């Protein structure tokens, strides 16, 4: 590339950048179609729902499962998911147990399985993991191994599973390299035939659409915003589940 051409490219790019940032707002919780695609099935859950039998779901994960950011566990995504599922499947009594514990690696969560997951006899487990491993830079093979062994244990007991990937935050990316852990989690899911709920991409989309702006708002407002994000996550999970049990 010749220098004048290069300079022209630079100039165009600099002028284009702010324009690209301005975007129209869209209705809440909406995501592009490709983020709603799901190839996996949840056969055990589907059978229970068809038979109108009670369903226990365990949501195991970290701080964003526990939902302290929203101020109350009722506002965390598992609780929002339960409401959405109960609306859609009124014939089955649906319970979603929240087993979120902040600041735990995938391996630490896996170690909790006997007490927190198997003891509840769930039909479906939603496992939200990866953030803390990325923060702590767990060696990638150990992270992959922990997730694979966890999925193996769930599969052995005939429990349907959904993995949930990380939260997106455009401002922490300078310090945390989520990319590797994100792609690894998705690859594990693909290898083991487990659906990975693309929370990261969804939240990135919402962030790009400026749907939830945490900057420049009061602390109380931030808690409310967090609750809205969790609500969207819960709803989107419910519609993914609906597609997977059809």
């Amino acid at each position, binding site marked *: *590339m010749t*220098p004048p051409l*290069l300079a022209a*490219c*630079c100039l*165009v*790019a600099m002028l*284009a*950048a*702010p324009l*690209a*940032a301005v975007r129209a707002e869209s209705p809440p919780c909406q995501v592009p179609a490709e983020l709603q695609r799901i190839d996996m099935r949840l056969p055990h859950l589907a059978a229970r729902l068809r038979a109108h039998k009670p369903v226990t779901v365990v949501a195991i994960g*970290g*701080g*964003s499962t526990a939902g*302290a*950011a*929203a101020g109350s566990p009722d506002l965390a995504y598992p609780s929002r998911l339960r409401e959405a599922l109960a609306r859609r499947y009124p014939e089955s009594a649906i319970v979603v147990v929240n087993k979120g514990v*902040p*600041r735990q690696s995938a391996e630490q969560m896996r170690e909790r399985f006997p007490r927190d997951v198997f003891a509840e006899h769930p039909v479906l487990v939603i496992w939200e993991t990866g*953030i*803390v491993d990325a*923060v*702590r*830079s767990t*060696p*990638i*093979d150990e992270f*992959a191994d922990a997730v694979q062994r966890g999925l193996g244990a769930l599969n052995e007991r005939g429990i349907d599973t959904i993995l949930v990937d990380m*939260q997106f*935050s*455009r*401002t*922490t*990316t*300078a*310090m*945390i*390299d*989520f*990319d590797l852990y994100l792609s*690894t989690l998705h*690859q594990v899911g*693909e*290898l083991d035939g487990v659906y990975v709920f693309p929370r990261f991409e969804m939240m*990135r989309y919402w962030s*790009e659409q400026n749907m939830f702006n*945490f*900057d420049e708002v009061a*602390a109380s407002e*931030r*808690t409310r915003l*967090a609750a809205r*994000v969790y609500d969207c996550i819960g709803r989107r999970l419910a519609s993914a589940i609906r597609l997977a049990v059809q």
Partner: protein
Amino acid sequence: MAAPTKSRDLRLDFFRGVALIFIFADHIPGNVLSYFTLQAVAFYDAAEVFIFISGFTAALVYGQRLIAKGALYATAQIWRRAWQLYVAHVFLFVIFIGEVSYTVKAFHNPMYNEETRVADFLVQPHVAVVKALLLEFQPTFLDILPLYILMMLIFPAILLMISRRPMLVLVPSLLLYLAVQVFGLSVPAYPEGRTWYFNPLAWQFVFVSGAVLGQIAARGQDLPRLTRDLPRLTRALLPWALMVVCAAVVVRLTWTIGGVWSEVPRLFFKQLWPVDKSDLSPIRLVPFLATVVLAAAWVRRDAKFLASRAARPFVLCGRQSLEVFCLGVVLSALGHFILAEYDNELLMQVAVNAIGIGAMLLTAKMIDWYKRMDREPVMAAAATPRTQRSEGVIRRDEAAE
């Protein structure tokens, strides 16, 4: 360079220059360009190339100084280089702090501060700064220079030994590498529980094997037996190397393509995966060494393309590797920031890549120009008094390895 008789080996500059561009591209998460870098077709990536060539050139440059000016001088020169690298590392760390401080407001977001308390740094900045100075705190992007610095610190000892008995270094180095693979040895880092991302106990082998070959290249005619045997060894290894590289490229390529189009089956995905970079998994190392054999056999020192106009910018990049590397780290962090802040569309990605790579190439060209001007004798201009003219000295190239 200290050897005026021998022209610079452009292959080293060229491949290192290309590696630096790849490192820039690969450091931007989700960069489309990274589908076209080394890591898309090979199990290893530009990091191996960079460390290997760094070892090679270090042995080449300082090996010649060792012969010409003795061990003490060579040691002083190597440590001066280590110091430059250290200063560069600290400089990058300061930029990192700037970026972090700028984004501190993100921690107002209750959804993130609970989980990601990156704030390990923000809570105890005094500890983090000291740990960074001790090379124990290695934030994203600041992990490869500590390895390089450590290698340069111990390099005088390595150089002295390989100049006498290369095998006495190469064999223990390989054994250490194997010990890492078997026993999982690692070097602790900060914060608690972390380890060096580039495990120096494993990665030293890439640097040392580069250095051993560089030493042989530096000594040339002093080692008639090795100089004669090495090409023969290369030829003998060639078919095996070719097989390894081809197999690895085919397998890796199915992973890359299969990642985009799920219809393409990913060969041996389950068996070979994940490929560990920190400990330099043999799946990375073996194909890399095989590629070195191929490059040695096929890319001739006087290959035409190396001297071509098209290759020139990359050669210059490789020649000013420290500056260009640092710039690349800063630019990739910046590019990442821009893509995350605005959006990730293709046009934006193309612009970020074009600007980043353009800046790296231009900077290399500028530094090269400056160093050339600096080297030229202060010409006896008409205005210069006669007495001063005799003081015009030819300045040697700064440690340009």
